[in-house]
């Protein structure tokens, strides 16, 4: 049984969190994974997420917000269902990363950190994602897409456009 009654998370995630806090010598160590997993489910870190996580870890809301503001993957506003993250760091830049970013902007009609009106896609220019030898690369949510060309981006985007929702 969850220590929290009326959890805002799904029973599966609540159970996962109950276990997660027991793994570490100090409960607070679970904070960053919890924030990320909560974001995966809720879509962003809402005030309710901050409050429940703080409660689960015996922290002040402020402690959670202070950590939340540090990590670039954590967001306090919803992104698209599919968040397109295009790397433009050095290895990707040399092999056309900016071309890929501009192609995504034109194709989706949105800029950096913007969301399409239907909420299906969002776009971000990101720093190195660790796919340097398969550049240029991007991530859609957590999935890597590598050795991109504008034509390959079109295929990838068309695939996600046809998906209803999900991760």
């Amino acid at each position, binding site marked *: 049984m969850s220590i929290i009654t009326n959890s805002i998370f799904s029973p599966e995630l609540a159970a996962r969190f109950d276990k997660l806090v027991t*793994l*570490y*010598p*100090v409960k*607070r*160590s*679970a*904070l*960053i*994974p919890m*924030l*990320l997993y909560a974001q995966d489910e809720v879509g962003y870190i809402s005030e309710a997420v901050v409050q429940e996580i703080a409660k689960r*870890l015996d922290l002040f809301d402020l402690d959670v917000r*202070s*950590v939340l503001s*540090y*990590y*670039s*993957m*954590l967001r306090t506003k919803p992104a698209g269902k599919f968040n397109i993250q295009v790397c*433009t*760091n*050095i*290895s990707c*830049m*040399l*092999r056309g*990363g*900016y*071309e890929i*970013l*501009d192609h995504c*902007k034109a194709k989706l009609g949105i*800029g*950096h950190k913007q969301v399409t009106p239907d909420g299906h896609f969002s776009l971000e*220019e990101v*720093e*190195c*994602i*660790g*796919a*340097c*030898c*398969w*550049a240029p690369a991007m*991530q859609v949510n*957590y*999935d*890597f897409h*590598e*050795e991109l060309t504008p034509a390959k981006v079109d295929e990838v985007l068309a695939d996600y456009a046809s998906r209803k929702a999900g991760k």
Partner: protein
Amino acid sequence: MPRLVSHPEEAIVLKRRWGQGAADIDKYIALDGYKAVQNAIAKGMEAMPGWIIDTMKASGLRGRGGAGFPTGMKWSFVPKTSPKPKYVLVNGDESEPGTCKDHVIFREDPHSVVEGTMIAGLAIGAKMGFIYLRGEYRYLLNIVEKAVADAYAKGFLGKNIFGVEGLDFDIVTQTGAGAYEVGEESALMESLEGKRGVPRIKPPFPAVVGLYGGPTVINNAETIASAPHILLMGGPEYAALGSERNGGTRLFGISGHVERPGVYELPMGYSLRKAIYEVGGGIKGGKQLKAVVPGGASCPVLRADEIDVGLDFDQMGKAGTMLGSGGIVVLDETVSIVEFALRTIKFYQHESCGWCIPCREGTDWIKKTLTRVYLDGGQKKDIDNVQYLAENMMGRTFCPLGDAAAMPTLGFVKKFRKEFEDYIEGKKAGTPLMTTESEHELAGAAH
């Protein structure tokens, strides 16, 4: 999916199990997996730590994260007895631009990291290890989590591992959430303790006061993954593969303007020229080489006439740069160094955690100044200003991020000063890669 590459010049140790489905525990075991850790245990509890550490020392293995500290020595610094629990922390927060080797290790051979973590733990007398992966590597975290779960199911982890009474070892996997700075070992510990990833002052070093205040060994994932191979083949045998004081092999990620980018395993001390022209297949499209960033974005650039150097920590140091994380980024003749320098500092400015003022302000002012130069508003004194700013960041911060930003900047402005001067006079070298829209973003310093 990362495309695996190979080349006849490679010396295969770490890559031995790649492409063979070794993420599956039975496959890993069939390929001599979990044999090294059992060999160590077979030495008996008394002799085991000394045997592991002596073998690691003899191997000449130096930290693959970038600093190149001898691994065996690092493990030997951990006090034998400690009132607080000891820990092993594996740094898989791979974020140095140009570096993607740990990505492939986690994907192709996750059990080598699990086994290496156990070996490090047995060497220092820890009962718990953490494997920390950057948040972007979620699919890899899933692979590593399954590897850990499978090892528990076999009785290789948990209580009485391998059936040895009283021998316990647990591994917890952890995800980050996007922060380059967390790749720095003390910031990594802060992050694992659930805090903002800001660095701690040293001393005390983690080997004495680390995670949760206990003695902690922190190693890069590649370093840890090397340990089982070293125990199996023998320290001196591993050392003999490399160069003087630089034992063994390491993974080099060759990226940028080469015909065959990829992660290759080469002997330490291997020629940088051959790495680019033979292993990497030469410059893409038959163009000329302009420069190389030899070990991840933080390493000072080498000009095309400076690549006759061996890829080890000492030779690269003598050449005025660093071996770093082994990420070799190749720039052809079309690259504008002014633009490349700007893109590099833009990264460090974005990633500076803001804890130390020289880094927080220095990266910002260098970026602002180089942006002005890039957007045709530069003056010659801007080059001196950039150099002055970078020189005053060096060594004045808690962690090496300040140095990591200053060193490549100094490399660019010193080695390509003429190109900066010409640029300011309107004679621009190279073809721009950042697009107009991005220039607006740069001008607004928005990221």
